[in-house]
């Protein structure tokens, strides 16, 4: 939030919106049913919903095809996101509504020596692999882009961290026998497109697919996947954005030429520029498929606009991620980034996952204060205040700030 209205002004504006101009006072019922994502220029409010099976209270971005965002405060105190708060994102409305574990098959075909149709029972018999990894939508925080861009208008909550249990993709591909002419591996799931629309399919280079970390998960956080998160199995691509983490994965095709499908050639492309950023009027720059994530960090213990006690140390906590490497350090600022204080980090539970942090900021004088949190990854990449921009609204990882009012 850059130089916006003061907290009191903003609260007044919210009250007016909530009252619908009828002059009513903001009610507790309203407070429970709407959330403000603070998207610049709005519309910024979304209803909370508990209507989706297997999900607790979620921010309703779209009911069909479902887009459900995790409220950031639901992450408070959790390195691993509870499955019932994990964000949901489907492209097409025809999503799997019923999966029979007996008849389900994962097909492996194309440039392989032995095409396979593996049952879940066969997958359960294979050597196990487990990894902690963050699943983050390519367009997480798109709603915070300025100028704004069309698309799912997420706040920061299209992200979650889980411990994924399953099998290595490499082991599955070895079982089928990768043919010498294979160059890429294409993944698709049980969701089906409208008539004549392109099947949602994503591809990885063969070397990446065979790296021993890309995996097929049948459990997240020790339980089977919720239907909305890709039951019975989904691809897990540690360190990469979730567009590749194909849900309800039922087809793996080895390709003998790079994938030229819509979802690789046209969609989910980023500028081939530093931080995937271009000027809003730029044209004709080269693009590449979106890929690795960068460092991010979030304050989870208080929300934007919170009131805090003045003249007393302010304890904060939250989560940080390095992207494709671990978290080296997390720093906090209570003066909008002029000075920084190192936060204490919790145990490292895997370089692809969240790392908890906590800090006690020096006493704040009465008034409004801009808090900022900054992560530096193990590769030395640090978040900066500079906002990026690209027309897809992808890859946002600039420093997040929240305003608090001390009194």
């Amino acid at each position, binding site marked *: 939030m850059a130089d916006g209205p003061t907290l009191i002004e903003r609260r007044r504006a919210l009250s007016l919106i909530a009252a619908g101009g009828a002059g009513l006072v903001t009610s507790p019922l309203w407070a429970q049913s709407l959330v403000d994502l603070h*998207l610049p*220029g*709005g*519309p910024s409010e*979304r209803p909370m*919903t508990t*209507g*989706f*099976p297997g999900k607790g209270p979620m921010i*309703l*971005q*779209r*009911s*069909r*095809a*479902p*887009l459900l965002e995790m409220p950031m405060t639901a992450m408070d105190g959790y390195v691993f996101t509870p499955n019932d708060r994990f964000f949901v994102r489907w492209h*097409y*409305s*025809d*999503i*799997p*509504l*019923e*999966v*029979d*574990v*007996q008849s389900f098959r994962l097909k492996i075909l194309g440039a392989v020596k032995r095409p396979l149709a593996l*049952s*879940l*029972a066969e*997958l*359960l*018999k294979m050597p*196990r692999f487990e990894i902690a990894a963050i699943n983050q939508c390519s367009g997480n925080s798109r*709603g915070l882009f300025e100028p*704004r*861009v*069309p698309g*799912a*208008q997420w706040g920061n909550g299209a992200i979650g961290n889980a411990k994924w*249990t399953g099998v290595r993709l490499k082991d599955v591909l070895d079982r089928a026998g990768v043919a010498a002419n294979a160059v890429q591996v294409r993944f698709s799931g*049980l969701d*089906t*497109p*409208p*008539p*004549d*629309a*392109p099947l949602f399919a994503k591809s990885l280079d063969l070397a990446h697919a065979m790296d021993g970390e890309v995996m097929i998960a*049948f*459990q997240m956080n020790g339980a*089977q996947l919720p*239907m*909305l998160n890709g*039951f*019975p199995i989904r691809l897990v691509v540690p360190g990469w954005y979730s567009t590749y983490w194909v849900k309800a994965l039922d087809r793996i095709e080895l390709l003998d030429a790079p994938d030229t499908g*819509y979802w690789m050639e*046209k969609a989910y492309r980023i500028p081939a520029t530093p931080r995937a950023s271009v000027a809003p009027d730029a044209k004709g720059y080269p693009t590449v498929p979106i890929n690795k994530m960068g460092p991010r960090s979030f304050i989870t213990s208080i929300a934007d606009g919170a009131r805090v006690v003045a003249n007393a140390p302010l304890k904060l906590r939250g989560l940080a991620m390095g992207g494709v490497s671990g978290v080296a350090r997390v720093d906090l600022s209570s003066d909008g980034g002029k000075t920084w204080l190192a936060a204490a980090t919790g145990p490292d539970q895997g370089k692809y996952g969240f790392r908890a942090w906590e800090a006690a900021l020096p006493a704040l004088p009465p008034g409004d204060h801009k808090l900022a949190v900054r992560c530096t990854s193990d590769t030395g990449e640090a978040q900066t205040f500079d906002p990026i921009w690209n027309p897809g609204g992808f890859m946002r990882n600039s420093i997040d700030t929240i305003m608090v009012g001390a009194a």
Partner: protein
Amino acid sequence: MNRPRYLGPAMLAVAALSLGGAAIAAQPAPVAKSISGGGITLTSSTLNLPEEKSAFPEGAAGELITNNCTACHSAEMILNQPLLGADKWKAEIDKMRGTYHAQIAPADDAALVAALTGLQTPRP
């Protein structure tokens, strides 16, 4: 909406209930099928999505948007967009028709763009 690929007994029962409205439809008892291996059990699952609650304002403009856009997605997708302006709304229509084969008649484009921009009250 297309026919779901896995149309099982539970869904058929739901369909029978909603179509016939019969209070006493014979709903087959759900069969809890599961498989296990290596200490992990996976159980067959279904998903009953909630009813959509969002809609466009009543009137001709709202009906035009409903009829052209909500075959593929619910109304929130449009209601939650930032101020886009006529050019960007037209680009969205072209994308929906060109890529996703949305059944939008080109003759409706001008009216649809006007309806979409009219939907977005300018914010200061």
